[in-house]
């Protein structure tokens, strides 16, 4: 498998008057062709910051970046963190594309969608207007917009929510990118429409052999399409593994908490939802040690004082399934046993 995206030791922080906000701390992640990698976490965990950094859409004047984000482009490999901004811009929309949570606000209300799609093509293929037009209709057709040539003349507000997200996807596909970053692509949509969009994404992924970096807080979506999952908490990856690992063999208390807070459709008696107690920490003054420790219900299972003292390493028995926790890995299945076997 070819690696399409390699994030190594990414740190992102925003200097403010009250101190630096550490949005992402030491994040490493790989995305391969044809693969869907999900980043899961609560709001403020750093997942969106990570995705914007990958696109190079962070504000260079107010963001401090270190580490590297390597993306191969033809013969060369571009490092989004360290390379020239113009190089990164040239790659945006061509090698990597992005779709966003709210398709209504993400489409420009003043322009016909045909124009907006064509523009995405023309940026990287200047002057090829005819091709742009053709490609627009083609892509709209591909994402399942009926009468694409006609609808291309419509404005965003004339589409339904699901159709708009299809349009966004079509726009992202205009230059056949290798990497598609989907930031909460279904969050703003109706449940029935969500499924359609996810199916569409999977179909497209197959067709173009793309790598999809899925940013979401919705474990249902993750379960539906992700191959591998990274769980983030307070700027750190706390657990990384295959989707099966995460859902059936969670190794980090935070992952366990997340899984427990998902409503489950079961026959018979109703189950109470278990939310994670407490609030995510401020990213300016992170608690010392494990950032999750103040909210961790399993803290007494760890060696005394260890949670408050040091941040556990991201390690695991299997190199494909790693996690951060001071509780010995062998104890954890027992400790987390009341988790009712994943989904």
């Amino acid at each position, binding site marked *: 498998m070819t690696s399409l995206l390699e994030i190594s030791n990414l740190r992102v922080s925003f200097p403010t008057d009250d101190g630096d906000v550490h949005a992402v701390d030491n994040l490493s992640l790989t995305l391969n062709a044809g693969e869907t990698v999900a980043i899961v976490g609560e709001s403020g965990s750093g997942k969106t910051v990570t995705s914007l950094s990958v696109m190079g859409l962070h504000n260079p004047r107010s963001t401090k970046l270190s580490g590297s984000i390597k993306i191969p482009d033809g013969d060369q490999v571009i490092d989004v963190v360290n390379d020239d901004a113009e190089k990164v811009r040239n790659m945006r*929309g061509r090698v990597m594309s992005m779709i966003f949570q709210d398709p209504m606000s*993400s489409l*420009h209300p*003043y322009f016909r969608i045909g124009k907006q799609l064509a523009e995405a093509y023309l*940026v990287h293929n200047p002057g090829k207007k005819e091709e742009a037009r053709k490609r627009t209709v083609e892509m709209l057709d591909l994402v399942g917009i009926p009468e694409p040539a006609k609808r291309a003349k419509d404005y965003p507000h004339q589409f339904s929510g699901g159709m708009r997200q299809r349009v966004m996807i079509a726009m992202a596909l205009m230059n056949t990118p290798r990497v598609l970053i989907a930031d909460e692509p279904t969050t703003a949509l109706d449940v029935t429409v969500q499924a359609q969009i996810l199916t569409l994404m999977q179909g497209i992924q197959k067709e173009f052999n793309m790598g999809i970096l899925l940013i979401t807080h919705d474990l249902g979506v993750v379960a539906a399409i992700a191959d591998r999952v990274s769980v983030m908490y307070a700027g750190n990856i706390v657990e990384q593994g295959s989707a099966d690992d995460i859902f059936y063999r969670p190794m980090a208390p935070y992952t366990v908490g997340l899984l427990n807070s998902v409503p489950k459709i079961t026959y018979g008696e109703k189950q109470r939802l278990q939310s994670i107690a407490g609030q995510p920490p401020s990213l300016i003054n992170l608690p010392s040690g494990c950032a999750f420790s103040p909210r961790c219900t399993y803290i007494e299972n760890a060696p005394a004082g260890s949670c408050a003292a040091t941040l556990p390493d991201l390690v695991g028995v299997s190199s494909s399934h790693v996690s951060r926790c001071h509780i010995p890995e062998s104890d954890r299945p027992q400790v987390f046993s009341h988790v009712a076997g994943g989904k």
Partner: protein
Amino acid sequence: MLTFVSRRLVYAAITLLIVSMAVYAIFAILPFDPAALTCGQHCTPLVIRANRIKLGFDKPLWEQYWMFLHGIFAGRTYGVGSAAFHCPAPAFGYSFNDNMCVTELLQQKLPITLSVAIGALILWLIVGVGLGILAARFKGRWPDTASSVFVLFGTSLPVFVTGLFLLIWVSIKWKIIPISFLGYVSVFSDPIGFVKLFILPWITLAFAFAALYTRFTRASILETLGEDYIRTARAKGLSEKKVLRIHTFRAALAPIVTLASLDFAGLIGGAILTETIFNLPGIGQWTLRSVYEFNLPVVVCTTILAAGVVIIMNLIVDMLYAVLDPRVRI
């Protein structure tokens, strides 16, 4: 579109009718005898009574108002015998202080006020929006700082201070644009004379307004730059220049259209200070003087004009919005 415009025009007519009634009502409850205001120190009761009859102030208020409405459509005749004279429709009455029909006076004054307002509008839009764009584009850097100094001066110096300063120094003392006493010249007959006559008033007004517009434009652009669709545009790989030019300006400048049209409407209603300082006998100076002189027909006319301009400008704004923003359909 046609239905929209015609419906709005009907509303406008109703509004103007109500405005004119209100002005009549206000003058009716003021503790002044309008007939007594027609003459000075030797106003004998006999003359006052005669003038009251001549001007129709002896009639009930509703009848006076009816005569006013009738005059707008059919013209109005004042006086009797060989001293009678006629104001042709649309007649807004007769100004005894000026010895002229109000409509005739309006025809003299409107071009002056329009010249002031349009020229100033163009100037302040260029300067204000231009600086606002620069300030937003280079937020936090020196063009932003420089423009905020401009904004500080523009918003804190009253129009009469800048106006008097310009007039006294530029025109009177340095004689860069010598003061002209030749009165209004049309832009079509004498473009250079026109610019010489109006450039200082334009600068005076534009200075104050441009400052507001700089601030407003800057804020509006920065707000638009935070929109999701701008992020999308960037995600397409558009250069920052194109993001600004194609995606930001149109959306950011839409609210400025509203602001500008209302400010413009306000100026037509009377740039009183500017007209007074530069002695431009336009609507503002005329209105002020007429209020001071309790010249009812003129006050009614200029009030209706001011209200009418606001209504028309609102209509134009709505139509412009429909052009700018496809979500708005009329």
